[in-house]
């Protein structure tokens, strides 16, 4: 009897262990994201997660954004979302309102949260729920060609620059060598693109949307910013009309040395390095504070690339562990190319990420922006009313380009994009 009982106990334990192991071996965590090249860099982190979680297999899948969103949307419609997936700041509100994202609020402690940039982490909070968590964030900055500044004897962009200082520099940096009326070198390059326009609006304390982001209602500060930007092309001639640059990739104008200054996303650091190489020295600066704002009321334009958990995930705790690993200590600085800033502060502040031996020499400026109040500018149906990606010819982008190209007045353009945007938002 005793012997039987002694045998029974280990048998039960072995059976339970076998069951547990079998269950563990069956655990598959699905993960989907929008950048195949980035997924390659993430493979080491995924392998490490699997090694730390015996029996767990991560099924990772990546595709370009043009395929990613339709496919993820179809999976949402089918109620078959991956456990973990990449979520953009632009879509997080719509996806949260549709009830597709699990609430992470109860999963993260304040101590954990303190390890991440607060401004980036705040993007994933919709209403009272934290529905996505940042992996990295990006911010538009002003790129400037140091060689051109030095050749023109112009002081490099300063922290206390006003918009008049910026304009004076742009005028000095616009060079028409053969006096044919078409400068060979422009002081600035911009068009109606969101990353070219909104940084100035937000640094002037302006807003395009009303308080609850339900309607387009440009504030006077925003209109003043638009007037200033369009005057750069139409009045001062320090930036080319977008039509003149047709056929050149917009992100190549600055690195090809055609303009001395350019405001665009920090992710373009990688492209400027690739295209410009060592042909000139360049740096980054923050867009100057506008005349209608102070350092306190001006806001930085920044947003986060995030990870979220599907509302139908059967293993949210494991999914959250995976997110923590993929946004935090599981990553290295080399996983974040160029100007993608890790949301995990320890990596962002590391020497490896700051890359002191590469251009720009002042990459730490991006970290400073991360401590400022930010505006993402996104709302529901943002891509439609703003004019983004394959619909970039329409919406606000298309209307502003008409002004830059001298075919429309700013008042008319504002009236048109407000009417169109509000029609989109009211549908």
């Amino acid at each position: 009897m005793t012997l039987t009982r002694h045998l029974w106990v280990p048998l039960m334990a072995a059976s339970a262990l076998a069951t547990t192991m079998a269950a563990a071996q069956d655990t598959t965590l699905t993960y989907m994201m929008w950048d195949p090249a980035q997924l390659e860099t993430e493979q080491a982190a995924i392998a490490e997660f699997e090694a730390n979680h015996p029996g767990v297999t991560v099924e990772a899948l990546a595709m370009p954004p043009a395929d990613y969103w339709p496919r993820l949307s179809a999976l949402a419609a089918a109620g078959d979302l991956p456990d973990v997936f990449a979520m953009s700041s632009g879509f997080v509100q719509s996806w949260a309102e549709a009830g597709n994202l699990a609430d992470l609020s109860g999963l993260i402690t304040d101590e954990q949260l303190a390890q991440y940039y607060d401004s980036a982490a705040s993007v994933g909070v919709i209403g009272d729920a934290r529905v996505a968590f940042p992996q990295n964030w990006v911010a538009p900055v002003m790129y400037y060609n140091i060689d051109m500044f030095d050749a023109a004897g112009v002081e490099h962009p300063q922290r206390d620059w006003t918009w008049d200082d910026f304009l004076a520099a742009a005028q000095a940096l616009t060079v028409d060598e053969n006096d044919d009326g078409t400068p060979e070198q422009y002081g600035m390059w911009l068009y109606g693109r969101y990353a070219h326009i909104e940084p100035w609006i937000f640094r002037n304390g302006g807003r395009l949307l009303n308080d609850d982001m339900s309607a387009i209602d440009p504030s006077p500060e925003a209109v003043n910013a638009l007037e200033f930007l369009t005057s750069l092309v139409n009045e001062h001639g320090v930036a080319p009309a977008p039509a003149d640059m047709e056929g050149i990739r917009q992100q190549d104008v600055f690195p090809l040395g055609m303009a001395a200054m350019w405001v665009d996303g920090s992710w373009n650091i990688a492209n400027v390095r690739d295209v410009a190489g060592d042909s000139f020295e360049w740096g980054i600066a923050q867009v100057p504070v506008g005349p209608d704002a102070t350092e306190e009321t001006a806001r930085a334009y920044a947003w986060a690339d995030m990870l979220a958990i599907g509302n139908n995930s059967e293993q949210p705790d494991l999914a959250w562990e995976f997110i923590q690993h993929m946004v935090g200590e599981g990553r290295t600085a080399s996983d974040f190319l160029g100007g993608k800033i890790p949301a995990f502060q320890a990596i962002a502040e590391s020497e490896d990420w700051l890359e002191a031996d590469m251009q720009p020499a002042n990459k730490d400026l991006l970290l400073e922006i991360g401590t400022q109040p930010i505006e993402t500018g996104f709302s529901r149906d943002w891509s439609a009313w703003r004019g983004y990606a394959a619909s970039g010819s329409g919406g606000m982008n298309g209307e502003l380009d008409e002004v830059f190209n001298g075919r429309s007045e700013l008042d008319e353009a504002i009236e048109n994009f407000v009417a169109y945007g509000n029609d989109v938002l009211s549908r």
Partner: protein
Amino acid sequence: MTPAWQRYAPALIFLLPALVGLAVFRLVPILWSFVLSFYDWQIFDQPSFTGLDNYIHILTSPVSGQVLLNTAVFGLIYVPGSIILSLILASVLNNALRSSAFFRSALFVPYITSTVAVTLAWKWIFSTRFGLLNNALAWIGIDAAPAWLADPTYALPAVAIVSIWKDVGFYMILLLAGLQTIDPTYYEAARIDGARVLRRFFRITVPLLSRSLFFVLIIAIVRSTQTFEITYALTEGGPNRSSTTLAYFVYENAFIHFQMGYAAALAYILCFVLGLLTLVNFYFRRRWVHE
């Protein structure tokens, strides 16, 4: 006598897989998208029934109006342009260059080449500062050449020109096949009677080619409403929507803004317009097509 169902049963069994595939992957989505056109449905959210709202919005919105007008203008350039050019090329190949496989192949190559690849080459040709076209114009003294793809006046015609260039080889082959069925004795008799080239063309070639021309006309009208890849790679519908046609607008709404119900309604309006045009063509067919 064997009952009809027994006679057709083996054929139906063999056809069944194809019929099931047709029903599941074609007919059901076509019918389902019609149902969807009465819903507001962002694909990742729950659909909500909105009745005729999508259709009313499309027919009253200035943006949709502009898109419909662009589609009509594109068709008015593309359809006659591609038919006239392909007819001229087919006639030249049929007469002067009858044995030239080289020219036939050369003119057909754009049709079978990757659309995006050749469109990128055209994008460079039309480029404002560094484009082949504007540099050629500057070389002959025209310095104030337009920004072809960034000017609302020229962007849509530019898309139409590239579309014509791409498709003309296909229409040419269809018309060439028709031309080669025309009995040469008609031309010989006309020549003896003193008919000149143009008279022979309009009195013999065109009437006897009318069935092929009718087919090409229908195909060209359908294709004129379906232009997408060239628009996507050349102008992305710009500037300021001046080259956005209906098919591109459907794509934008479905796969950029994920407004599936709205996109479905747009697609059914496209389907209705196309069906109407085809019916009109078939009605007038008897007046100019020689059977």
